[in-house]
């Protein structure tokens, strides 16, 4: 609506032409075009792994493109470091905050930009001015650790403005915010837009994009597939642009759900160090042959739910019953032995030993069970059997690797994930907990993993599926529960629910979805 500022002709704040960036084995960005006008909020949409982050790192000087041109205010630029980008008036708010807890707000802002106003009273005055612009109501002398997430984000934006940025890249800024905070952030952004700031807003949340953006560029599998007008486009159309024609078709599956309970969770509560509990009174049931999907905005307790069921965190109250056996007090190992397979959301941190060979990774989590453990109480391992079984997984799950002796770190993300999925389906599990099973994997591996999950479900496996990808959730799940602020707030039938309805329930906008 505010298209007053220089919208004509070549008046682009930022223009990317034919940007291509290759990494060993992958093309992260492939001939991307992007044009951002002055004083607008331009959204960049795409699925996880579509290449958004790489593109923004290129624009911010953290990585250099192999091909293509970057223009800022019409002039060609070549950034060798973030410092160059900052000098050109571009700032970035990272998805993972770049803040130091043990420094004060002012120190966090000043760091690296001491030259502009010193570090004394003049700097504090300037921080005070900008704090009003971004809506930060905290003393600059307060330690950052005392700030909540929304305020931290404001400090991040403040940091960028303090360096004189006129164009601000926001990488998934709403991922960690609750809806009211999102609204406040958007109000701030609109105010700043009126003062002439330009924003590049990266997100895969379509409602938010439509709410805040003046124009949209969609990228898919590393290339830009088009632009859209947020006033006319629907979420469905956007989603189709993002995933292409490969939107999973929910209609063709027949139900394999049985009435045999595999997992029952009752009143599960997990206290936080301070404030609102991370999980409050969670009840859920997964039957054999059923996929229960958990939908939710990231940071609403999904990770904690999974880790509590796995026994990696200790619940304050509540019961976890696996196949009729109460495992609430059992160790992680005992729960695994009782038949839980676990595909963690961050495979490099929780799923793999990066420098160990594939066959050693086969042992992880299965140290006590055949085929990798020898029978008896001595705790001996059967290495030849571990190797053989790893070779089986490599073949069955199509893990692309020259052999089972290479370290896990040498494989691509998709192949690592296939290895993890293969391993976790190998121990005759009765329940599989799959957290974002296709995050950061290529399209081919994604289809393969989906297929394996469907097969296992047909064979009677119970699956608890956590995903940020709504289409994946709807496509795979037999029923869906929505998690918000540590509570299961709604349920939905994947056969009838639309991503929009689900999105509304996830943000708590509508209170109840179809139940």
């Amino acid at each position: 609506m505010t298209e007053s500022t220089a919208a004509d002709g070549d008046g682009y704040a930022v223009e990317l032409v034919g940007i291509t960036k290759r990494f060993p084995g992958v093309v992260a960005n492939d001939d991307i075009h992007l044009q951002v006008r002055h004083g607008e909020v331009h959204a960049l949409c795409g699925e996880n792994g579509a290449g958004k982050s790489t593109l923004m790192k290129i624009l911010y000087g953290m990585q250099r493109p192999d091909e293509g041109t970057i223009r800022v205010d019409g002039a060609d630029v070549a950034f060798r470091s973030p410092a160059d980008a900052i000098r050109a008036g571009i700032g970035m708010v990272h998805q993972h905050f770049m803040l130091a807890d043990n420094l004060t707000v002012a120190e966090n802002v000043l760091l690296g930009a001491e030259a502009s106003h010193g570090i004394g009273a003049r700097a504090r005055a300037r921080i005070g001015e900008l704090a009003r612009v971004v809506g930060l109501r905290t003393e600059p002398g307060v330690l950052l650790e005392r700030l909540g997430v929304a305020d931290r984000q404001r400090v991040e934006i403040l940091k960028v403005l303090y360096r004189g940025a006129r164009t601000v890249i926001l990488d998934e800024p709403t991922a960690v915010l609750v809806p009211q905070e999102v609204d406040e952030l958007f109000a701030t952004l609109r105010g700043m837009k009126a003062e002439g700031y330009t924003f590049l807003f990266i997100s895969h949340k379509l409602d938010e994009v439509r709410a805040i953006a003046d124009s949209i560029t969609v990228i898919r599998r590393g290339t830009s597939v088009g632009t859209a007008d947020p006033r006319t486009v629907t979420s469905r159309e956007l989603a189709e642009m993002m995933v292409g024609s490969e939107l999973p078709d929910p209609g063709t599956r027949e139900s394999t759900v049985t009435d045999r309970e595999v997992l029952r969770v009752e009143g599960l509560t997990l206290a936080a160090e301070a404030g609102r509990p991370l999980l409050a009174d969670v009840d859920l049931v997964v039957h054999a042959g059923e996929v229960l999907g958990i939908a939710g905005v990231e940071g609403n307790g999904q990770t904690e739910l999974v880790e509590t069921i796995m026994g990696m965190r200790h619940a304050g109250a509540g019961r976890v019953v696996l196949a009729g056996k109460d495992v609430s007090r059992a160790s992680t190992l005992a729960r695994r032995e009782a038949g839980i397979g676990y595909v963690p959301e961050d495979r490099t941190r929780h799923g793999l030993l990066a420098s160990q060979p594939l066959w050693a990774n086969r042992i992880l989590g299965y140290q006590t069970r055949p085929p990798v453990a020898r029978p008896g109480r001595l705790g001996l391992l059967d290495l030849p059997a571990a190797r053989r079984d790893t070779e089986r997984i490599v073949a069955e799950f199509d893990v692309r690797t020259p052999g089972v002796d290479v370290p896990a770190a040498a494989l691509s993300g998709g192949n690592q994930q296939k290895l993890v999925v293969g391993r976790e389906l190998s121990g005759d599990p009765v329940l599989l907990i799959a957290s974002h099973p296709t995050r950061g994997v290529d399209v081919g591996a994604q289809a393969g993993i989906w297929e394996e999950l469907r097969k296992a479900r047909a064979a009677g496996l119970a699956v608890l599926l956590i995903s940020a990808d709504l289409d994946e959730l709807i496509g795979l799940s037999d029923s869906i529960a929505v998690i918000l602020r540590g509570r299961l707030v709604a349920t939905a039938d994947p056969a009838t629910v639309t991503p929009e309805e689900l999105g509304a329930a996830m943000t708590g906008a509508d209170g109840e979805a179809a139940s």
Partner: protein
Amino acid sequence: MNRVRTVLLPPALAVLFAALLCAVALLVSGDNPLTALAVMITQVGEGTTAVDIVNSAAVYYLAALAVAIGFQMKLFNIGIEGQYRLAACVAAIVGGAVALPPVLHTLVILLVGALTGAAWAGIAALLKAYRGVSEVISTIMLNFVATGLIAFLISTDAFGVLRGNNISTQPIAPSGQVPGIPLGDFGRIFGLIFLSAALGVAYWFLLERTRFGFDLKASGESPTAAAAGGVNSRRMVIIALLLSGAVAGLVGLPELLGRDLAYTLNSPTGYGFTGIAIALLGRNHPVGIAIGALLWAFLDKSALALDNVGVPREIVLIMQGSIVLSVVVAYEIVRRYELAAEQRRVAAQLRARAAEPAGVGSAGAGSTGAGS
């Protein structure tokens, strides 16, 4: 060939680099490095030197094993020093006080040593597991406290006796001693050298063939992945430090039972730090540590020989220090380089394989690139 490059090259280069450094130092101070080298090599054949080297190496080997157990899960037991000294002292006191038949007497002493070492390490283990105290700091502090405790234990107020003008514990009766194996003119090899060897094998087996070893390595590589894989990290910390302390408790015993027979204020110190250096040198591998221990003992003995020809014996200390520092740098460089090379190689092999079956559909990235 690849393994040779990653495993043997870094230490070889480090030794070479350290030798060059020392050669320069000797040249600067007006000594001839070649003479020094010749003396160092010929000394091995003289008198009891060869046996002395093996004996020292056996002791160092135990110390390095103790360190390596902790290193496997990135626990830095800097406290081997205090653990082995206190254990030797307590074992000497107990060994001197009890009267038991042979073998049993020895076994009791060994057991007491291991238990004392484990108990002393156990303090650090509990502090780490339940209070989150860094084992580095706590074991350093415990080293000092052990020194005080030993001085108290062998004072005449406690268990010490005055022999000549030196205070020591009661000597251990022959039933508890482990006599050396005589090798004629070459001297005597410690009987407990077999203990070192056996523990080396046990260490290898534990690490490579058992669930505990796997858990240990997994915890060292990625505590988060180990936890998700069902490894109880608190339990691992405690067991690893207890084991490390138990092995440390044996370090002082070959000399105690084979040579000294009593613990005195002059009993040897410093093996703990030697153990750390050798574990680093041998990269925590049982065979690597053995080689490292022999090298270290060889350098130690060279000091005497060098002194005889007028070369400052302290050059050996520089040699040892620079070997350790350069070897850790060399391992780090090679590790990073190898991982990157491995990733490139895997990618290249997969590309080559994908190219074979007519390239239909497989090169997805390439085809989209051509299409746009």
